[in-house]
């Protein structure tokens, strides 16, 4: 059976956090321990999103936690990050759901929306009474969203939307979709629309056969002559920069989330290695090769914590740039995936089964490596930042 998570803090990291930060982290940790850990392996097996947890998540303020007003908690970015860490310690899919609701739906409405849009949607989304999704990626346009084919055409007081979106978290369970489309009479400028999912012409279907993020919903969206009132256009959006700002929010949360997944794998491997005995009745933790793996993991986790904390502090001070967030996302997801593989190795055959969370994290992290800017795209973002030369 899986071990009870003991927390990971090698370098006295907690001393760098203030009381509110620790308390937010501890609240999220306890919530996940009590409510998600007991059911997550079953959810993962069944490919089931634990929707029953949504009302309590809303009540505790986990949605849009770093937004101010509209029933949101008004957390700092570091507090928000620590909450994401704890959610992903539970499961990347469930963390993805919260990320999408918070960073990709509530954040754009908060940042680009009209007062009417904010007043209506944000309190409902904060409570979890309404769910949202984010439609940017298309079947043929992932890393290059600027090539999108989805179009919006102004007809009288309405916009008519046509296009296909793909790899959309929460698509089929959403009440509202943030749809990014090129507006024909604005010279194909990318704008964002709030599309209620019950509008005629809008349909969503689940992606089946996923080997990753099985506890969250992944969908495709189809928009065929979907009419929305002109007031559904988010007035503050303009150009590809708008959705990329949203992704920046989400990527920041992912950089923390990945630490959580890595902590889960490391803690499991550490506890297992102290119990499992081989050769002369000694725990495998006494073997040099096992210690090397544990050392690698705890070193990388500690470095990742410091990286995310610094990026979070800069974000709170309004000094962060997207390339900083790219570094945190790229580094931390990579190290988490490596941790999952090493931890699996330490558990041997036991690491394969869902008696332990490692294989689930490993498969989840393959998605996390790709979404919200692939590992390679973040390499190019950092590369451009240091050389001044774009290499896409």
């Amino acid at each position, binding site marked *: 059976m899986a071990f*009870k998570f*003991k*927390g990971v*803090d090698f370098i006295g990291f*907690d001393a760098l956090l203030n*009381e*509110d930060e*620790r*308390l*937010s982290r*501890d*609240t999220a940790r*306890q*919530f996940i321990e009590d409510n998600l850990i007991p059911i997550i392996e079953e959810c993962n097996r069944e490919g089931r999103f634990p929707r029953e947890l949504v009302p309590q998540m809303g*009540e*505790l*303020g*986990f949605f849009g*936690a770093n937004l101010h007003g509209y*029933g949101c*908690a*008004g*957390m700092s970015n570091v*507090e928000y990050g620590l*909450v994401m860490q704890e959610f992903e310690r539970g499961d990347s899919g469930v963390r993805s759901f919260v990320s999408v609701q918070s960073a990709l739906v509530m954040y754009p409405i908060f940042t680009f929306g009209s007062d009417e849009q904010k007043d209506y949607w944000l309190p409902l989304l904060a409570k979890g009474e309404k769910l949202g999704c984010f439609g940017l990626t298309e079947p043929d346009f992932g890393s290059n969203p600027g090539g999108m084919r989805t179009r919006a055409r102004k007809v009288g007081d309405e916009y008519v939307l046509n296009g296909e979106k793909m790899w959309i978290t929460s698509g089929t369970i959403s009440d509202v979709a943030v749809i990014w489309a090129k507006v024909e009479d604005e010279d194909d400028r990318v704008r964002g629309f709030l599309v209620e999912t019950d509008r005629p012409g809008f349909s969503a279907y689940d992606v089946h056969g996923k080997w990753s993020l099985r506890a969250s919903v992944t969908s495709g969206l189809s928009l065929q002559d979907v009419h929305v009132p002109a007031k559904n256009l988010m007035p503050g959006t303009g150009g590809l920069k708008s959705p990329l700002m949203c992704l920046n929010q989400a990527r920041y949360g992912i950089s923390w989330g990945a630490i959580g997944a890595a902590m889960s794998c490391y803690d499991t491997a550490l506890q297992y290695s102290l119990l499992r005995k081989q050769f002369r009745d000694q725990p495998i933790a006494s073997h040099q090769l096992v210690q090397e793996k544990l050392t690698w993991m705890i070193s990388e986790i500690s470095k990742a914590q410091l990286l995310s904390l610094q990026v979070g502090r800069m974000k709170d001070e309004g000094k962060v740039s997207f390339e900083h967030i790219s570094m945190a996302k790229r580094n931390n997801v990579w190290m988490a995936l490596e941790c999952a593989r090493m931890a699996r190795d330490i558990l041997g055959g036991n690491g394969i089964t869902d008696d332990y969370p490692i294989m689930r994290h490993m498969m989840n992290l393959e998605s996390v490596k790709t979404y919200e800017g692939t590992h390679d795209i973040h390499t190019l973002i950092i590369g451009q930042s240091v050389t001044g030369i774009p290499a896409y």
Partner: protein
Amino acid sequence: MKILVCIKQVPQKDAPLKLNESGTWIREDVSYEVNEPDAYALEEALRQKEKHGGEVVVITAGPARSQQVLREALAKGADRAIHLEDDKFVQLDSTNTARAIAAAVAEENFDLIVTGLQSDDFGAAQTGVLLAEILGLPHATIIIGIEKTDSGLHLKRELEAGHYQYVDLPTPAVLTIQSGINKLRYASLIGIKQAKNKPLRKVAWAEVEPKLSKNLQQIERLYVPVKQKKTEMIDGPAAEVARKVTEYLKNTARVI
């Protein structure tokens, strides 16, 4: 009801403990948390307030780090907090801790004072009942049910071997609460933010020192039990060996 909840910050249950240099207590560099029975006492106080109205005040005695348990209580819904803040409070025995708390709340008239039945670290189970004695209030221990009545409180106590006892107490009273009396709530993220604006009164050592005396109890030495593996072989005829084994079990090991 105006309710006081006494809360202690204790080392986390899973934390690996190291002894301090003098071998009288543990080193400070561990993670801390709310004493579990105190968390249930707080939850019960919040529920009573939700039912009957009033105010919930939380108090702790300990160094700066122990403010964390007050913040958590405020985030969960307590109205204000009192912090007896000094490193020296850690060394107090139960009697002096109770005296310090009594001194700090001398000006207040609480209808009810609740605390966990014991602490997860010392486990003395004394502070609550001593506080009742010092304040001259009735008390009941190991409470697993509280019902407010017209004349006071109708209480359910846990006894040994699955037995319960019902008692009625007038208020004001002091109760020590058993873990599991209710289901703990989480501090919501909004609650954590609101806690910042709630009053937290600090009480210095000097303010309560006149009420304290020399500790009646003191830890002389704390140590990790030394593992011993000694095997003694007894040779000789079977009857003789059996006699020696019996003698050993009777007189030395004292198990028969």
